[in-house]
């Protein structure tokens, strides 16, 4: 019964090997071959990870020690991969997302000799390694490989907005990796090991210790920069807005979510025994998550550049996921798992639809595209469905996650968490619905030609791609997002135990409460109402409009100014975030 164990290193080794081979012979490959090879590799990764997830469900966590360096009693020297259903399941989802996106990007960068595919495969290998590893330093290494691949992919177009976005992204995320390394060093200074399980024992044994708590703060801040949580979130909207569409899909759908996934691993497997960390997570991280959801929702509504809009929507949803994590309960963790996958599917599909608009109509500006979506009916229907799902419509995986997260948050910290979740969910849904109405139905007042004439970017994506080839992977993702919520919940709840042994005994509360169903309908109703308000301004009484504008304009102005696009400002905000941690520890 050893064969599943032999599979464990493959999902990382295969893409790395294929990428290296492809790079070596890239000049001799026929044009289409890299597409086919990369897609097949991603599918193979997804398949192997699915098998691993199933096997670990049947036989418990699989642990693979590289080079046979299994731990001797008391000494853990080797580096291991630990495969539990949640980690392998998420890795399988990432593989699938990559396969879909590689089909979408078919022939995308044909003149560049497969370099795009090499970077994508490197990115894939790093993300899967990041999911499966059970060694803190190894986690840092995958974090770095992932970041470097992402930096290069963001700057791929070498034009001004993408270079500026990539520079901001690189500087902030490099700071994140330094903080992470500092955290690794501090925790190693106390525990003397780097294996998650051994660290968990050491932390629980040593009791309260400022060095361990400081290490958690540095690690958490680093992962929260990656996961774009307030006040570390500024880089995300710059980077996601300028990266090529297929890359944005991966960023929003998987990479940023991985930050929270790793944070959950640290909180539940390494620092579970520390009371200070528990209090910090429950208090500060919960508040930051809720604040991120609210601010992200407002910022989403203020955007007209479709990619920036979706980027801010991603920030909102990451905030919601963080509240689920910060509840530190089985329900919250199950919610986080379901939400990660559900959000990745929906947001991936929406970014692909923006790519379709860019390819077919040469613009990503909501006003510039006014009424231009006629003739792309399937894309319009898909975008409306995506908007409804983002807005909390009670179907599918994302809704299952939202319910669990809202339940866990409100029982851990109070009703206000559910309020923030509904607010963020509704505003992001409303904004996507508003854009759908404007672009595909020509609803709302016709924009000033002066204002709308200039498409907001001169992005040149290849225009002669066949429409069906772009729509097929997008519709596949949406169909998967509509998997019955109960199924998703059950898998998520079963994965909690092996992922977080510390929660053994407590099971996720899956029962549909009437309140949760009401919350879903409430947020989707709010989303539709806000979208209708924005689109129907011409038919609304003037005093109402004036009152709403007087209230909201200063708020949006201030928020817009804060998102300045200057990397220096972002670094100041990172320092502010670190200060928040220390103030909370000193006085909280």
């Amino acid at each position, binding site marked *: 019964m050893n064969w599943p164990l032999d599979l464990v290193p493959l999902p990382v080794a295969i893409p790395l090997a294929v990428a290296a081979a492809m790079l070596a012979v890239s000049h001799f490959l026929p044009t289409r071959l890299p597409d086919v090879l990369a897609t097949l590799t991603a599918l193979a990764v997804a398949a192997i990870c699915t098998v691993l997830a199933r096997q670990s469900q049947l036989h418990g966590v699989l642990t693979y020690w590289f080079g046979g360096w299994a731990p001797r009693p008391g000494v853990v020297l080797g580096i291991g991969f630990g495969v539990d259903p949640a980690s392998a399941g998420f890795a399988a989802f990432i593989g699938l997302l990559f396969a879909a996106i590689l089909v979408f990007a078919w022939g995308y960068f044909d003149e560049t000799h497969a370099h795009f595919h090499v970077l994508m495969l490197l990115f894939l290998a790093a993300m899967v390694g990041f999911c499966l590893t059970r060694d803190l*330093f190894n986690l840092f*290494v995958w974090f*770095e490989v992932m*970041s*470097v691949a992402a*930096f*290069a992919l963001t*700057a791929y177009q*070498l*034009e*001004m*907005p993408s*270079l*500026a976005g*990539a*520079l901001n992204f*690189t*500087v902030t995320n*490099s*700071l994140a*990796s*330094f903080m992470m*390394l*500092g955290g*690794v*060093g*501090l925790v*190693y*200074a106390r525990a003397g090991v*780097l294996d998650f399980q051994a660290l968990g024992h050491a932390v629980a044994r040593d009791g309260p210790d400022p060095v361990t708590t400081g290490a958690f703060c540095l690690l958490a801040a680093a992962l929260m920069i990656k996961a774009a949580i307030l006040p570390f979130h500024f880089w995300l909207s*710059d980077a996601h*807005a*300028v990266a090529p569409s297929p890359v944005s899909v991966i960023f929003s759908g998987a990479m940023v979510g991985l930050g929270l996934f790793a944070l959950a691993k640290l909180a539940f497997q390494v620092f579970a025994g520390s009371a200070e960390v528990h209090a910090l997570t429950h208090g500060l991280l919960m508040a930051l998550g809720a604040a991120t959801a609210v601010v992200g929702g407002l910022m989403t509504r203020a955007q*007209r*550049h479709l990619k*920036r809009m979706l980027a801010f929507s991603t920030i909102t949803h990451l905030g919601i996921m963080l509240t689920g994590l910060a509840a530190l309960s089985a329900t919250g963790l199950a919610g986080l798992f379901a939400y990660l996958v559900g959000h990745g599917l929906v947001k991936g599909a929406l970014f692909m639809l923006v790519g379709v608009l860019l390819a077919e109509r040469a613009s990503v500006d909501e006003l510039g595209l006014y009424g231009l979506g006629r003739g792309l009916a399937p894309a319009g229907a898909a975008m409306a469905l995506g908007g409804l799902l983002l807005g909390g419509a009670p179907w599918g995986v994302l809704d299952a996650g939202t319910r669990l997260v809202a339940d866990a948050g409100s029982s851990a910290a109070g009703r206000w968490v559910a309020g923030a979740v509904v607010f963020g969910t509704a505003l992001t849904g409303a904004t996507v619905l508003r854009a759908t109405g404007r672009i595909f139905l020509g609803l709302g007042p016709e924009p000033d030609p002066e204002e709308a004439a200039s498409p*907001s*970017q001169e992005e040149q994506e290849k225009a002669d791609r066949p429409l069906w080839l772009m729509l097929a992977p997008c519709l596949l993702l949406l169909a998967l997002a509509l998997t019955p919520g109960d199924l998703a919940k059950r898998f998520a709840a079963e994965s909690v135990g092996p992922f977080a042994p510390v929660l053994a005994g407590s099971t996720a509360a899956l029962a549909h409460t009437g309140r949760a169903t009401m919350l879903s309908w409430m947020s989707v109703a709010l989303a539709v109402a806000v979208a209708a308000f924005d689109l129907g301004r011409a038919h609304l009484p003037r005093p109402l409009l004036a009152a709403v504008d007087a209230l909201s304009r200063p708020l949006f102005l201030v928020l817009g100014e804060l998102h*300045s*696009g*200057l*990397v*220096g*400002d972002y*670094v*100041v905000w*990172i*320092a502010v975030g670190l200060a928040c941690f220390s103030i909370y520890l000193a006085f909280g």
Partner: protein
Amino acid sequence: MSVLPWLVAAWLFGIGLYGIASSRSFIHLIGCLSVCQSSTYVLLLGIGYRWGAVAPVFYDHPPGTPAVDPVVQALVLTDIVVGATVTALLLAMALQVDRKYGELDPQKLRPLVAKARR
């Protein structure tokens, strides 16, 4: 272990952050980022250091001789490699910005970025 390496590491990280926040040139900014990174080297080497111990090479020492911790040295080596990669990538991007727009001051590049973000 003395408290000095911890203080030096904190100082380097802070001064690097200050440099990035106030920088008016991407090249200077990348240098400041390297300063931040060197704080992690100091921290890690400080953690692994043992007074009166030898380097962790046992070729001419009997096994069991007290040695400094080789694990953190491996971490630092990995970190240096990573740092070189990131710095090279950043400098390449700065070069592209300069070549296309003849400008490396983030403040002066801001209007170009803002136009594209609207």
